[in-house]
C-alpha cells in the first residue's frame, strides 16, 4: 500500500491538490514534483486539500515553505483546506497560521482566490 498519494484537480483558475496518507521526508519529493509542475504550467493559485492526510512531518511542511513565495510572487498563493486537528496542531506549533490561510471547506479557499 502506498504511504502517500497526491493528485490534482482544476477549478479554473485554481488548482486543487489532494494529498492522502503520510507526508514525510520520503514522500515529500512527490509533492515537490506536483508544485514544480504547477509552476511550469503557470498555475500559481493553489488550494491543498488535506482531508485524507493522516500525518505530516517537518519535511512535508518544508515543501509548502519552499514553494509559497514563488506562488505569491506570481499573484497566487498556497491555501490550506479541510485539515484534521492532529495535522493542524503541527502547522500551528511551527507558526504557519501567521503566514498562511486555513479553511474548513475547500470551496471557501477557492472563493478567496476568485474574490
Amino acid at each position, binding site marked *: 500500500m502506498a504511504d502517500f498519494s497526491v493528485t490534482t484537480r482544476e477549478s479554473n483558475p485554481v488548482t486543487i491538490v489532494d494529498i492522502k496518507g503520510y507526508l514525510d521526508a*520520503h514522500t515529500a519529493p512527490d509533492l515537490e514534483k506536483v508544485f514544480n509542475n504547477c509552476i511550469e504550467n503557470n498555475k500559481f493559485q493553489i488550494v491543498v486539500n488535506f482531508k485524507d492526510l493522516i500525518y505530516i512531518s*517537518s519535511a512535508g511542511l518544508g515543501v509548502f515553505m519552499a514553494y509559497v513565495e514563488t506562488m505569491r510572487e506570481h499573484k497566487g498563493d498556497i491555501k490550506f483546506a479541510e485539515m484534521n486537528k*492532529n495535522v493542524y496542531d503541527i502547522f500551528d506549533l*511551527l507558526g504557519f497560521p501567521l503566514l498562511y490561510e486555513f479553511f474548513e471547506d475547500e470551496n471557501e479557499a477557492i472563493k478567496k482566490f476568485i474574490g
Partner: protein
Amino acid sequence: MKTKSRNRELIVKSSTKNLSKIRNFIISAAKDFNLPEEDSGKIMLSVEEACTNIIKHAYKDNTDGIITIKLNILPKQFEVIIEDNGIHFNPNNIPEPDIEEYHRQKRFGGLGMFLMKKLMDKVTYKTLSNGINTLKMIKILS
C-alpha cells in the same frame, strides 16, 4: 497471554524508505501499552524527525548506515534511545528558531529539531567514546 515487552529494539538502514517502518514500530508499542493517542502521535513524530536528521545529517543520505531505536516503556514515561555511528551532530547546540523569522528567510531546515524539543519532555544527546551518537528522548505520559 504473552507478556508485552517493555524493552524493544528496531534496527534499520538509514533510508527514508524505512520511516514508515519506524512509525509502525512506535505505534505498535504505544498500542500495547494503551498510550493516549496524543502522546503516541507526539512520540512517533519526534522519533521520525530524529531519524530523518540522522539520515540527512549524520549519514548524509548514504543508505548503508545503521539506525538503532530502543524503547524503554515505563509506567509513567516512554523513553526512546536512538543510536547511529554517523557524523557527530549535537542538536542541543542549535538555538531555538524565531519561527516568523524562519518563514521570512525560507530557512526550513532545523524544524525537526524544534518539533522534537516541543513535543518531548526531555531531549539529550551524547557521543560515546566508541563514536556512537546517542539521542535520548523522554515523554512523560499523560
